[in-house]
């Protein structure tokens, strides 16, 4: 089995446009090769379901929805490996913040608000 006993730290920026950002640490059981998205999904299932992250394809690097910022770089949470010595994850800096790691990435021509009075 590729399961090991130790945990890894994942620190996540929490908050919304209205609530000031704070950093929150989580400890996640580490599996060889796991992605940052794997870790975030584990946190949602086992610790805090209110942690906000947007994703669809989960694994295939095809939906492009799980964009986040790590070490100042824009990356996909689904393909970025969780480092054994921990990681800090921020929402995209150049998109309006919705909540936690979710930003408004909906293309301008696909917004509901375009159709409402």
């Amino acid at each position, binding site marked *: *089995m*590729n399961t090991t006993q130790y945990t890894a730290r994942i620190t996540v920026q929490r908050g*919304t446009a*209205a609530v000031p950002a704070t950093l929150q640490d989580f400890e996640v059981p580490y*599996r*060889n*090769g*796991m*992605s940052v998205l*794997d870790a975030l999904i584990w946190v*949602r*299932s*086992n610790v805090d*379901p*209110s942690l*906000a992250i947007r*994703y*669809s*394809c*989960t*694994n*295939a*690097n*095809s*939906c*492009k*929805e799980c964009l986040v910022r790590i070490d100042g770089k824009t990356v*996909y949470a*689904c*393909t970025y*490996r969780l480092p054994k010595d921990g990681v800090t994850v921020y929402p995209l800096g150049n998109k309006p913040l*919705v*909540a936690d790691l*979710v930003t*408004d*990435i*909906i*293309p301008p*021509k*696909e*917004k*509901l608000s*375009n*159709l*409402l009075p």
Partner: protein
Amino acid sequence: MPTDIQRDILVVGAGAAGMYAAIAAARQGASVLLVDKSLIGRGGATVMAQMTVAAAIGEQAPDHWSKHLEDTLAAGRGLCDETLSAILCREAVDRIRELDAWQVGWARDKDHIRQVMAPGHSVPRCVYVDFLNTGPAVAATLRKQVAHSAGIDRVSGVSITDLVVNDGRVAGACALETDTGRQITIAAKAVVLAAGGLTRLFERNSASANMGGDAYALALKAGAELIDMEFVQFFPIGHLAPRLVGMDPIMWDPFRYKLGGRLLNGDREEFIENYGLSDSGSYTAPRDAASFAILREVQAGRGTPSGGAYLSFEHIPEEDLRTAFGPVIDRLQKNGIDLSRAPVEVSPIAHYHMGGIRVDEQMQTRVKGLYAAGEAVGGASGANRLSGNAIPEAFVFGERAGRFAAKDLDGSTGWPDAKATADLISGPQGCGKNDAIHPVRCLAELQKLLWDRVGLLRDAAGLNQTLDRIRSMRNEIADCKPAHREGFTPGLQEWHDLSASLLVAETVTASALERTESRGAHQRADFEHSDPKQARHLAATLADGRPRITADTLRTIGN
């Protein structure tokens, strides 16, 4: 009070089926609202497709759609709705040509579109876009056509929570925008359900997060019928270990086919032929039988460490691997996978749903004005889908649903009072106990339950236990609808998703219990053989909030 939005046609789901439906409806002059709970053309199953698209275009070898139909019916184990299968095979040719004209980029040899063999096909028939890029190329091409079609409005990040039916005819829908918490009403003269299948309900799956059965739940609640809901296709060699990120778990199929990858049990022995299947080198064992053989090996204690089988390319020279895999070999190396040195572990995973919404030849359900398209439709694949038929199904049924919906816009009645109707349909308002349920954990429990007891091998005891648990979960969450509030509302969204998933899971389980035989993807440990008397559909409708399963006759050509 009027509705927030009014259009001729509402299309729910923006994968290939939904986008094609929108394009086809707009070609008829209809005004279309194309809605996806994720992003248009990115969130569904289409964009994840990697390889083969079957169509009898006859460029690689002589072929005819009637031969494609023969192969489709043979794969379907006597349970196809032959009328739908025939439409699929005949019109796949036109749609593949249309995508070619839209410059999707089908792989070509010098003078023709390249077509390859795939399991269950009698001739090389499957087109694709290199490398492993069929889904993204198809999605990008259709997104462009949608953007260039007059009359289509696109909306991302909005999920349809209920359909509105008035005097037996669909009149629109209620919807929720997750990012803002906005609840809106949409009036439409026709609705096309193109929101995909249900494979996310199983623990091991190749699904996107959106494949939770929404389309089936919406159809049932609106009064439409579902058929063949017990038939879930398990893809035999889904990736299991080591952890592979950034790749679709079903990626191995074409390579195994191209190179002759060997399937081995935990003792490193070939086993497929022990199950009466012929597979070595040519990889022609059908999906249902291959999945079942792997399961039997694992149950006999001959599985791999992670509970599957080995897929080995170790006997293939490294340069041949590189030629066949192209840049994919580098992506694998980044995942620590060196195929020339070690095998990978594979396992059957839930991949596609054969069952679905019952439609006529115009893709209309028994509810007037309510249409379905793509994987959401049941019947064309019977008890087992032929590989390569899912994407053409999305194209063909999508195009038809949009076209026929747009031709039938008379007689719609509209919403008498949008606010009152929406309140009525949305049911009890939230209880305010917004933390009373844990939707993520509930879904995980459901996935494990279905994988263990409603997966590859079923029996009456396990199905009955599952039904009991699903029913109690449905009761538990019914009282715990989160209160609506402004702002980002994943809780309410997940409550709606979970409610739909539980209803659909109950329907699948009840159907599986009712089919007391083994056929195609439905295997019963307590009824090991096919029963000729059960060569008929099981239909599901909603009665007092519960799925009701009834036997129904098979539609054959000329019948």
